[in-house]
């Protein structure tokens, strides 16, 4: 929990010497509380104050980086239990498992690299290759780890409880900061030493939340700083309980031994659909890394979409790409409607047009993700922006008519849009729910009825 100005004041020398640049210790404390000053500015601060403030300034859940370079992923540093309270910041890293002895392993690694899609203008992709050691042969596993990086281009999770195998693999790929993932609570100090030696993150698996907390303390004492906590190895019910307890202890109690991101595995014995649904829950419910055996796009695309949706910042509405969208199967006489690029506005309007079963074009104007009325009030949805979008869209080449349907709420813009764009404006309904009726009964354009 962040300390208040008064909490901090109690830890200061209270001499009002002014050496820190602030006139009084209280003023300095207030600046520290709002993170506008640093304690180092006070030459007289006690060790006790330094320790207390240092601990308080750490985030309740540590930010951990897996990988190095452009494709590294950051997990942790979350601040809330429910996304509406703020947002979830660092999206779950999706890892696909590849077993060392799988004869198809190379094809599988290449496939993983291809699991990337574009949705609402954003590239979504699998982040990590989870490499499971099976041979017990350090040289073989090291060669596999090296080859996996070449084929997938992704950072690795090294799943092995063999110190020699992990050591050999880290000699080869340690610089790319893989996540070391021993599946055993034994020899935690040795694994921690390995993680420290190679500056890699380390997963700790105690088998229960309490034991995992003990292990994380021991790993930390042994010099491993970037830890990831394994949540639940039993049923989905247990995983959900572990993930929830870990998140709550970290955020509500500032319980340091659990102040790290988490990793969870889907049940490898379950059928692919069950694994996919399990992964969806783990993504929504706090897992920092989810490891699955899924590889087909039918399963991966929904999971990446789940992640994209859950990790959307509710404070910054998601935007759709501003462009011309065909809805249904429009032809050269189909109606043309215009709306803003706030995703919910777009989905609602698009849905209603589709429900009307009349093919149409929907022109989406860039209003920085605001709805029609908000964008109009902020002067982002105006004659200039609509006309520009209309010209850039190529609608004139696709349509034989020059009629544009404007949302009813901005009927006031009609004259100016006509003036600026040269298109004829028809005022549509205020609410999207009125669109089907409007298109069927009130719309006159496109049919030649009102081309004068």
């Amino acid at each position: 929990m962040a300390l208040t100005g008064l909490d901090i004041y109690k830890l200061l020398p209270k001499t009002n010497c002014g050496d820190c640049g602030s006139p009084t210790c209280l003023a300095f404390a207030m600046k520290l509380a709002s993170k506008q000053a640093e304690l180092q500015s006070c030459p007289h601060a006690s060790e006790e104050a330094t320790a207390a403030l240092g601990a308080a300034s750490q985030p309740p859940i540590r930010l951990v980086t897996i990988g190095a370079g452009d494709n590294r992923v950051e997990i942790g540093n979350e601040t809330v239990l429910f996304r509406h309270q703020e947002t979830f910041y660092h999206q779950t890293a999706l890892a696909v498992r590849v077993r060392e002895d799988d004869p198809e392993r190379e094809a599988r690694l290449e496939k993983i690299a291809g699991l990337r899609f574009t949705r609402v203008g954003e590239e979504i992709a699998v982040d990590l290759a989870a490499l499971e050691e099976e041979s017990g042969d350090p040289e073989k596993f090291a060669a596999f780890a090296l080859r996996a990086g070449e084929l997938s281009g992704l950072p690795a999770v090294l799943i092995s409880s063999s110190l020699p195998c992990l050591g050999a693999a880290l000699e080869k790929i340690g610089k790319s900061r893989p996540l070391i993932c021993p599946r055993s609570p034994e020899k935690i100090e040795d694994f921690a030493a390995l993680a420290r030696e190679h500056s890699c993150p380390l997963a700790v698996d105690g088998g229960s939340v309490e034991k995992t907390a003990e292990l994380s303390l021991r790993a930390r004492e042994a010099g491993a700083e970037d830890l990831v906590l394994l949540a639940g190895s039993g049923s989905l019910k247990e995983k959900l309980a572990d993930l929830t307890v870990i998140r709550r202890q970290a955020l509500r109690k500032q319980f340091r031994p659990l102040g790290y991101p988490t990793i969870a595995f889907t049940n490898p014995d379950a059928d692919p659909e069950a694994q996919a649904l399990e992964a969806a829950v783990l993504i929504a419910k706090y897992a920092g890394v989810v490891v699955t055996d899924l590889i087909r796009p039918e399963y991966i695309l929904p999971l990446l979409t789940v992640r994209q949706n859950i990790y959307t910042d509710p404070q910054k509405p998601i935007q759709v790409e501003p462009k011309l969208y065909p809805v249904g199967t429009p032809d050269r006489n189909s109606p043309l409607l215009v709306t803003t690029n706030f995703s919910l506005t777009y989905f609602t309007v698009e849905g209603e047009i589709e429900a009307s079963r009349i093919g149409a074009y929907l022109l989406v104007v860039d209003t920085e993700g605001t709805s029609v009325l908000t964008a109009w009030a902020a002067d982002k949805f105006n004659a200039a922006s609509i006309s520009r979008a209309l010209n850039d869209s190529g609608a004139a080449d696709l349509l034989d008519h020059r009629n544009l349907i404007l949302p009813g709420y901005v009927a006031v813009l009609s004259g100016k849009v006509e003036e600026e764009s040269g298109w004829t404006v028809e005022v549509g309904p205020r609410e999207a729910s009125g669109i089907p009726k409007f298109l069927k009964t009130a719309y006159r354009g496109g049919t030649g009825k009102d081309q004068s």
Partner: protein
Amino acid sequence: METVIEKWPAAINTVTIGAREDGGGTRSSTVTIGGETTLPFLAFEGAPPHRPALALDILDYSPDDWPETLREPFREALGDPAEWAGLCQEKYRPDLICLRLQSLHPDWGDTDPERAAETVRAVLAATSLPLIICGCDHPEKDNLAFPLCAAAAAGENCLIGFATEENYKTLTAACLADNHAIWAQSPIDINIAKQVNILISEMGFDPKRIVIDPNTGALGYGIEYTYSIMERIRLAALDGDKMLAMPLLGDVGADAWRAKEAKAAEKDFPEWGEENLRGPLWEAATAALLLQAGADLLIFRHPEALRKIRDHLDNLLDIA
């Protein structure tokens, strides 16, 4: 380490749908939802007293615009709601049937309200499962049909919808008269969700007979809004807000199958894989998220999606 256990001052209402002979109806089973005392599936704080219920949609017309994947499981029964309902009960075993009277809508057939009531009777005769009845979302037509349908199903304790902030009076009166539960819909807005419940209650309808539908956005198409509104409604309810303490409904199938990712053919999007796997999973993934947000009643389109979620619930509740 002392685990943070959350104790909430209030619980979610329970709502029962369907009536057996001893309850004045003819159903062979009833469905009870709600009753939670904590957030979804946190068994260490209190196991949910009732399993979320799973319904399967049937339509009162032949949905020629449905993708092949969705038509296939019902092929022989499409266009005949009674046969369709019977097929669902026998082959796919949902907890409830959801009958959609879409053909009432002026754009979808503009059929007579009397015919809708006939359909309700025929479906009740063809299945012994509890019934959800959904209008066509055209206020004038719905208001003509609601009283007839409610009367046709008198004694069967159906869930009928939906009531909205602008259109709730006729449905509420009909459900009062014939003793049905109300499906109340609001446009992804917690305040309107509460307002609809207040309006319905002010007509003398028992708020413990209402189910909240905060409006479903499908996976990839606004589900994050539904997810957060459901979470907020559930948190407010557990905190003691009686006008939000209703079980939550996710109208999953109708929305999920609008998603391009659910219905597009593999030949058009080869990189997305087989549509027969993808479509039902898109629907099931939408449902899985809503379950985590607090949904108590889910309405599906594809039987495979329903089956996957039934297994998923076993996994969540740890039933081997």
